[in-house]
């Protein structure tokens, strides 16, 4: 199986992407959305034409909303992001955006989140990622509890964790880059997308490992790396086809779905891609590497 034969290259690609992603997160940092840091987001739509963004900006600055950032949305809309606003402040911003009534403006949506709610959501997000990781590790260790030859079952769990961390870090890195250059923010839905990716990726990995388990039981004396290669080629078509099918759904969400879940589906698409990669090209080769290291030490 070519995956096992060229395992160093494939593992190398993963290492490269993970390193780049970590570097991106360190250098650029993540741009947090208002649901994590508190603040408000106001989407407005102009009935006929949109005034220059700078004009709106000036009118906001003059009234003490200097921290507000304005982004165009669609042809006639804008999104104004700023600190969390009271009802009176919101009404003021809406009327300021109409440039004293010169432009007809309609409010499409408004969200304001207090800082306490934001920090709470952040805590929840981190807690749920840790909890999901723990649950998956325990689950994998349980499922493979009877497989302990030639690689012990906790090592399967260990490899799954590495694959999962790989799956989390890369989309985060991509979003650090997107955040830096395009102002894309990390919000609650981003976390949900990451966790869903974990689910799909672990599914893939489990299917491959299941096959390895089955082949080991059927043929105890075979060379481990051959067995892994054989298992991979048996599950290869399924892995690719399954990911393709889910990816078809995710892409139709990206291109045709609602605006509010677009970023979410982009994260999922990226995550699906690297998740599939990790379960085929990272997890199983790592198992082989671990086994050969074990042999050397003996």
């Amino acid at each position, binding site marked *: 199986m070519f995956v096992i034969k060229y395992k160093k290259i494939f593992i190398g690609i993963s290492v490269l992407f993970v390193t780049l992603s970590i570097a991106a997160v360190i250098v650029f940092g993540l741009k947090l959305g208002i649901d994590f840091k508190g603040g408000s987001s106001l989407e407005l739509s102009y009935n006929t034409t949109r005034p220059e963004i700078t004009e709106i900006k000036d009118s906001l600055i003059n009234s003490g909303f200097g921290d507000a950032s304005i982004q165009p949305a669609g042809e006639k809309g804008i999104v104004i992001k700023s600190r969390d606003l009271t*009802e009176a402040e919101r009404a003021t911003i809406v009327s300021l955006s109409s440039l004293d009534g010169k432009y007809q403006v309609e409010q499409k949506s408004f969200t304001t989140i207090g800082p306490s709610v934001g920090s709470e959501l952040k805590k929840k997000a981190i807690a749920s990622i840790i909890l999901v990781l723990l649950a998956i590790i325990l689950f994998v260790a349980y499922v493979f509890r009877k497989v302990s030859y030639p690689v012990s079952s906790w090592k399967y769990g260990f490899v799954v964790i590495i694959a999962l961390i790989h799956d989390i870090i890369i989309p985060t890195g991509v979003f650090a880059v997107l955040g830096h250059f395009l102002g894309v923010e990390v919000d609650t839905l981003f976390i949900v997308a990451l966790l869903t990716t974990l689910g799909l990726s672990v599914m893939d990995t489990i299917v491959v490992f299941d096959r390895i388990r089955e082949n080991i039981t059927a043929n105890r004396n075979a060379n481990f790396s051959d067995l892994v290669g054989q298992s991979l080629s048996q599950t290869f078509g399924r892995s690719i086809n399954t990911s393709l099918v889910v990816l*078809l759904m995710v892409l139709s969400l990206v291109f045709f779905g609602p605006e509010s*879940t677009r970023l979410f589906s982009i994260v999922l698409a990226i995550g699906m891609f690297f998740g599939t990669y990790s379960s085929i090209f990272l997890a199983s080769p790592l198992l082989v590497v671990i086994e050969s290291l074990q042999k050397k030490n003996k």
Partner: protein
Amino acid sequence: MIKKRIFALIVLLFGLGLGWAVLRGEQPNAPKFIANHPFRLGLDLSGGTHLLYSADVSKLSASQVDDSMSALRDVIERRINLFGVGEPIVQEQTGSFGSGGDHRLSIELPGITDIGEAIKMIGQTPFLEFRVQSDEPQKISIDKDGNATIDPNGNFVATPLNGKYLKSAQLSFNSSTGEPIVNLNFNDEGAKMFEQITRDNVGKTVAIYLDGQVISAPVVREAISGGQAQISGNFTPEEGRALVGRLNSGALPVPISLISTETIGATLGEQATNAGVKAALIGFLAIALFLIIWYRLPGLIASIALVIYIAITLALYKLIPVTLSSAGIAGFIISIGMAVDANILIFERFKEERKKGRGTRDALSEGFSKAWLSIRDANTASIIISIILFWFGSSLIKGFALTFGLGVIVSLVSAIGITRVFLRALPTMENSKVGKFLFSNGFIK
């Protein structure tokens, strides 16, 4: 074989019937039993306002907190109902993880997109007032059919006494008759006014109004001093208790402050709904096309099973009911993709078994039983994740977790159960070229 085919036909008809019911229910003048279960759309799809209040319970003792919070919810629910908002949802959120034991009230107001109006509606103190019978004669209006009606409100005039002067209300029972009595305690100023009003109106009715509606109209027996009033009359203990609750709700029992709001315009919600439906349809067609081209006859069967899967899931959304948000629709759309996964696992196994030289039927049952373990393990992981998400998440995440988790569970039934029923009912066509082609897949001829 005949039995299997009849069973498959029943499953197919059931699925199609369910699908018809789901679609029919969304059209006007649908039969009642279907129309009674519409899709429940979240605020981000239907348009509306979500308000999150933090309640300041620091001045209350621990034992009072729960009562005060539910009283607060009742008061606010009542205030909203007075404005006729359709299906408002008012929920307490207490002691959730990460909130530091903060007591919160979450309010969803579908259809209300004017936040100013919504905040006013909730922040406003309901108006309790006392009115007395006026000396004017009853006003009688006669409509064009000649029916005379007496306006029950017309005969009362306002007094300066209102809820501002009420200290509290309690329910008690008459010691001899056991009749429920509502006791009102006014503050000093209110006590003086009440004494004056009762002195002037002995033998007449003093009506108690809440937001312009009569809630009680006792007859004054004598002038009352001391700021204590009793309302007794034809009410049950339950009604008395409700009245006390309403009187005490003159002001909010706990001070509240707004900590976050969200408003989505109706057009935006509608666009999101349409986009979600479109994405689901296009995604489904793409998958069906892929399945049929790659897996041929079994792929077609899987696509039909997928239609039934979609019908079952949508019907469950209506029956449970699940409140659909755009995140929820995303969860559903992804679950469609996952539902196919189990079928792909089975088909790939089926292909392997056929390569080993088994007959179609043998290979099928082997494929199902060998793929089952992988399917079970893989889906368990997804179910665990959706449970954690549901448990931990904000309402946004909960919506996703619910549709996603439900989708995974239903997909297990549809992929394993329904596909198997159909595939077993097919003729094996073991020795014909057409049969071989139809049961092969990929680039193999």
